[in-house]
């Protein structure tokens, strides 16, 4: 029994040095390109976890932190479109299609298969991006993907089609540090 404990302790100590990386200050941006109006919404509170050992990629964003630069537009976005009181988060959880072996300074294209959830609707999604091992050992991730509002039951009224695009272009950028247990 004692041996088992020791083995387990050693194993769990290992997980302290496990390949898990985390951020609380990732950047998430969406771009809406409608015929008469182009605007972006930005948040710098994207929360993310990449665990290379267990192969898990988990990101979420508090949609209340998105800012478009016009307060009333933010309120309309939260109240009428994203319904953040009911569905405060956008979430993505998935697995890397292959685990990259990154040397310091190296960048590699990665693909993640997972589930994206926003406005209470969950869909399968494959997201491709660039993963880089920084010289200090941290990870940097950049990725782009598109979201169609209709896919997530976010209604786009005819009256505002010229101000709000059906296709929202999302970019994320995050620097992830080794996770402390």
């Amino acid at each position, binding site marked *: 029994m004692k041996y088992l404990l020791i083995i387990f302790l050693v194993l769990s100590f290992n997980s302290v040095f496990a390949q898990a990386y985390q951020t609380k200050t990732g950047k998430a941006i969406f771009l809406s390109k409608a015929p008469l109006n182009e605007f972006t919404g930005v948040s710098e*509170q994207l929360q*993310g*976890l990449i665990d290379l050992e267990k192969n898990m990629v988990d990101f979420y964003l*508090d949609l209340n932190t998105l800012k478009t630069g*016009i*307060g009333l537009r933010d*309120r309309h976005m939260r109240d009428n479109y994203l319904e953040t009181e009911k569905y405060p988060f956008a979430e993505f959880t998935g697995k890397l299609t292959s685990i990259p072996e990154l040397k310091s300074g190296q960048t590699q294209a990665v693909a993640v298969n997972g589930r994206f959830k926003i406005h209470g609707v969950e869909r399968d999604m494959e997201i491709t991006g660039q993963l880089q091992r920084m010289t200090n050992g941290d990870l940097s991730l950049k990725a782009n993907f598109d979201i169609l509002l209709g896919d997530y039951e976010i209604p786009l009224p005819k009256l505002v089609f010229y101000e709000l695009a059906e296709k929202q272009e999302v970019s994320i950028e995050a620097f992830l540090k080794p996770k402390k247990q």
Partner: protein
Amino acid sequence: MKKLLLIILVTCSLPAFGQLERKLANENQPVDLIFHAPRHINLLTVEPLDPKSMHFAIMHTFGSVNGGIQNLFGLDNGANIQFSFEFALSNKLSLAASRSSRDKIYNLFGRYHLLQQTQNESMPFSLSLAGGAGVNTSAYDFLPEGSPSFSERSSFFGQIMIGRRFSPKFSAQLSPMMAYFVDPRAVYQIQGDQNLYLALGLSGKLKVTDRSSLTLQYIPNLNSDLRSNYGIGWDVEAGGHVFQMYFVTSQGLNEQYLLAGGNGVPGEEFRLGFNVNRIFALGQKKQKW
């Protein structure tokens, strides 16, 4: 020993396997859009502005509808129009200037947001204050006693606004109000002859679709025999604008004239009115990435 092992198992391995815990960035997230705009029919609301943004409102009331088709239900006569510019210095404080055509009143006022209702009910209502001063700039040279002085043309108002969103569909606001006229002359287009007017504004909003609401207003006078103000209307959000169409018994558009201006008989002397609200963000740099 087994227990210890179990504890270690639970504490060490579970968080490592799990996803990140979903946490709100701000537990006390304020409630959005208790009302559609900083105006609601005639009254100011608890709806704040963001720093460096400007709220521009064009407000309009026509003649009373009981003239019938002959006067196109009041549209032919007696329009009162007010332009109002409100500029937010911070999340809490905004300063505004307005000008209404009736008696050519210029008003300067401010709004201060003391409390904001939060989604988790840690604060159950929003509370804002407003106050201002106005001057009547009509020409009164024809009067035998001569034109009134600047101070005789002045009037003041103050109000407290207590608003709450009771459900995503229904919001209400209680606004104790006062108005003070230094010299309420008969020649001014007000019905009252008192200096001080006290009233209680009641506003209601019932959301009918995602972007439009039925709006209600009732402002009983507390210390005068003047008729009370009744209003019923429809608010529509349309891509950055908020349009407000309503029937109301008062032709006054600024706070002092709302209380002292008098009201028509409800049902008979309703007037058609509308407000166009637009919020501009000033001094914003285009974000690049």
